[in-house]
Structure formats: structure tokens, C-alpha cells
């Protein structure tokens, strides 16, 4: 299998190329820019056939162009970040509502103000209700694998929904790492050409997409999306398993469990920070702590069942959120706690707000959190539900 040393952004660009995308419409925004620069390079060098790059004047137009392209049956791709993703918001609903399997890479970046280009998950999580599936990558390899799987899942006949593959600003986007890339023929076998639900270029049978839905009809279309999201859970597991069988990296779990079999305390989180957490788990294990890590790969659809299975056997869950919903709590914490409310599993759960706007979360920080969690479990009582971990006090 060919290996390349690439940044997270180049991994995304290579994955789009290997997925044989036909239309890319994107607007450059730091730190996403090098994804579309690389794709433009592929086109300039004649390395790709049948790929149309659409230069647009904003992210709103980028998504609009992808929607148009996808509605004609083309495989469409885009990439963005933070404020750009926010500018796309209205169009994201159109993509999901019209059931178009567009794939986008979002490079997680903090929302301004204050102006920031560093890592923070609030931008993508603020789009959680748009009907997009969301995959959070831990490293460059997962960015690459995630984009390939995203196309297969999005275009599955039971899904037909857009997918967002999320990577961390700079921590992944601009950091180089070895990435395994399968041969093009193997990828073509895994990811055959798209079979669209409908094509607007069917001139013999004209129809309109996204036409008026009166109160008599709108409701049913919402249900269809909800059902497709539930179906997507099965599809994700199937595709993840198939990916493992073909290419050696298994993604059949929506939550990746790391040393959780006999764990009393589990750290739960998403994205690149879970690499640090796994490292810390190894160290803490050697110091006698029974800890494990649960990396939430898919945030939408939310892996309720897997979380319940995990929660049954642990005493405490420390949810590390690199995001915050103002007026409430960390978004992953909010979701996870909500899932467990009507179940018999009642682990002690505490929310640690970490790493906002690119602040480092180190192995020592995870150790401190482990000590705090152990005290809480010994007392059987939370000191506080939400902790702003890095706050200068």
C-alpha cells in the first residue's frame, strides 16, 4: 500500500481525488485553504480527469454550487472552516433536505470574535441540527479514511444525506504524518460511481426540487430524514467493517473504545485531543489507574446504543469538550448525559471544558483530570458539574 507523508489537509485533498469527485466548489479560508489549493494543483497538473472546479465568491455560494452539482447526479465536494461554515448554514439545510450526498471537510476552528484561527469544535457542532452526518477524525489517516467512507455512506441508497468530515485546525490540518493510501483500483472497487436518487438533467421528466411543502406534506419529509439518520447507523457500521476488511483499518464502531474493558473511569471526547488522551491512559494504567478512553467518531447520528453499553460498566465518565453551548454546557456532555437519562446506567458524569481556541491539552492535564475524577468517585458526589479546566484563577 503506498504511503505518503502529508498534512491533514493534503490527506483530505488526496481522498477527494481518489474518490473521483466530479465537482469541487470552495472558497479559501484559513486553515482550510491548502485543501483546495492541492485540488487546484491536481487539476493544473492534469492528474485528474472529469473534475470541475467552481470558483465562487463566498461559502454560501460554494455550498449552493455543490447542491446544484449534486442534484444533477455528480459527486460533489467542498471544504471550509469556522465563519465560512457559519455562512453556509442556510445552504446546509438545503443539502440535507433535498437528500444530496455532498461530502465536506470542515477544519475545526474557533468562532470569532476574538478573531482566532485555532482549534475549537463549536463551529461544526453548531451545525448539528442541519441533517448532516458528522465524523470526527483523530489523525491524518482518519481524515483520509473518513472522506472515502463518507462518500460511500452518504450515497448509500438508505441514507442519501450529506456528510461532514471534521479535523482539527493546525493540529491536523498543517501537521505532517504518514498516511496509508490504497491503490486507485482498490478504491474504485470500494467506492463505485454514484447512483443518484434523482437527476435534474432528466429532461424527459421535468420536476422541481425543494418545491413548496404545505403543512399537509412537510412533516413526512422531516420523518424521512430522521429515519435515514437511524438507518445510517447500520450503514456506518457495515461500511466501516468493509473498510477494515479491504484496507486494514476497522471503523465498525461508532465509538472507538480504548482499554475500557475493566475501566472505572472513561475519558470521552472527539477529534485530535483523543490522541493525547490515549497516550495519557497508557501512562495512568502504569500508575495503577483503571482508566480508558471512548472516542466518539460519529456525532451525528449519535451512537446512543454504544454509549449505553459503555456506561453500564463504568463508574465515572469525564467528558472532554473542546466546545461550549453558551447558557448550558459542553455539547457532547449535553448529548451523552441526555442519552443515559432514561436508562439504568447512571455513571457519575463530569464535563471538562478544554482546549478552546487552540489551547493545549497535555498528557499532564489528563492526569490531573483522572485524579479529580477518582476523588469524585470515592466521595460518590460531584464537586461541580462543569469545570472550565484551563481558567486562570
Amino acid at each position: 500500500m503506498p504511503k505518503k507523508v502529508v498534512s491533514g489537509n493534503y490527506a483530505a485533498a488526496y481522498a477527494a481525488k481518489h474518490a473521483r469527485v466530479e465537482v469541487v466548489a470552495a472558497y479559501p479560508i484559513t486553515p482550510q485553504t491548502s485543501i483546495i489549493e492541492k485540488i487546484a494543483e491536481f487539476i493544473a497538473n492534469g492528474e485528474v480527469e472529469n473534475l470541475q472546479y467552481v470558483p465562487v465568491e463566498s461559502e454560501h455560494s460554494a455550498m449552493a454550487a455543490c447542491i446544484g452539482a449534486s442534484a444533477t447526479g455528480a459527486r460533489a465536494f467542498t471544504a471550509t472552516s469556522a465563519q465560512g461554515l457559519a455562512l453556509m448554514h442556510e445552504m446546509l439545510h438545503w443539502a440535507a433536505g433535498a437528500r444530496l450526498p455532498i461530502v465536506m471537510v470542515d477544519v475545526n476552528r474557533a468562532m470569532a470574535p476574538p478573531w482566532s484561527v485555532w482549534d475549537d469544535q463549536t463551529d461544526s457542532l453548531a451545525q448539528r441540527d442541519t441533517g448532516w452526518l458528522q465524523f470526527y477524525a483523530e489523525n491524518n489517516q482518519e481524515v483520509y479514511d473518513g472522506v472515502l467512507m463518507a462518500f460511500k455512506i452518504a450515497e448509500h441508497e438508505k441514507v442519501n444525506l450529506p456528510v461532514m468530515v471534521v479535523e482539527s485546525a493546525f493540529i491536523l490540518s498543517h501537521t505532517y504524518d504518514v498516511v496509508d493510501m490504497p491503490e486507485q483500483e482498490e478504491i474504485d472497487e470500494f467506492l463505485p460511481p454514484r447512483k443518484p436518487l434523482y437527476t435534474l438533467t432528466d429532461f424527459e421528466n421535468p420536476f422541481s426540487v425543494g418545491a413548496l411543502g404545505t403543512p399537509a406534506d412537510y412533516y413526512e419529509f422531516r420523518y424521512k430524514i430522521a429515519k435515514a439518520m437511524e438507518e445510517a447507523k447500520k450503514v456506518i457500521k457495515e461500511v466501516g467493517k468493509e473498510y477494515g476488511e479491504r484496507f486494514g483499518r476497522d471503523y465498525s464502531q461508532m465509538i472507538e473504545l480504548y482499554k475500557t474493558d475493566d475501566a472505572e473511569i472513561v475519558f470521552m471526547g472527539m477529534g485530535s485531543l483523543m490522541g493525547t488522551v490515549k497516550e495519557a491512559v497508557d501512562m495512568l494504567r502504569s500508575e495503577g489507574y483503571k482508566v480508558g478512553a471512548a472516542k466518539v467518531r460519529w456525532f451525528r447520528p449519535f451512537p446512543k446504543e454504544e454509549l449505553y453499553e459503555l456506561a453500564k460498566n463504568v463508574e465515572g465518565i469525564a467528558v472532554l469538550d473542546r466546545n461550549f453551548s453558551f447558557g448550558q454546557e459542553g455539547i457532547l456532555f449535553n448529548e451523552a448525559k441526555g442519552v443515559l437519562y432514561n436508562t439504568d446506567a447512571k455513571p457519575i458524569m463530569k464535563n471538562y471544558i478544554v482546549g478552546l481556541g487552540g489551547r493545549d491539552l497535555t498528557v499532564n492535564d489528563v492526569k490531573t483530570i483522572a485524579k479529580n475524577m477518582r476523588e469524585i468517585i470515592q466521595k460518590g458526589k460531584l464537586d461541580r458539574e462543569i469545570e472550565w479546566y484551563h481558567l486562570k484563577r
Partner: protein
Amino acid sequence: MNTLFGEKKAKAEKMVFKSVDEYPEAPITLGTTLSNFTGDWRTFMPVIDESKCIKCYICWKFCPEPAIYIKEDGYTAVDYDYCKGCGICANECPTKAISMVREEK
């Protein structure tokens, strides 16, 4: 009839879905919006009194839908499948030939 003045829109089948499974997977409307009847939004319906009508076609020009068409005899008529009952025709009619009548459903 002179088509310059427009005729009643071609009649399309109204799509009726009885259960969620009958709906298409994506919100697409076959045959464009012809089958998407908007007349049931109406509370007041315009009624044309032909004895007062002077065939000026101001109502036809002003109808935003357009749900007013011109019959063979030159009088205007309302296509109630698409008339939303906005009342612009009644307001603009110089001879007050159009009255808005509350609809019994």
C-alpha cells in the same frame, strides 16, 4: 381564444399521499409546481360580477399568481385551484365588480 391573454393553466393531478411510505424519499414535485395546489390557503374568495365587468383586464394584470384567466366570452374568471385570496383584484377593479366573500369550508 387569444393566448396572449392567457388561459386557465393546464389541469394537473393533485398529488395525495396517504401514508409516509407513499412519499418520495426526497421532496421533489413531479411535473413542476402544477400539481401543487395553493388554493386551499384562501380565507376569502374573489367573486366576479360579470354585469359590472368592463373587460379592462386590470385584475388579470395584477394577479400575482396568476390565477385569473380570460374565458372564451372575454370575461375574466378565477382559477380557484391556485387563487390564494390576496384580494388585489378586488382592490384594483375600477368598477367594483369583484367582491371578496368569506369561504365556507
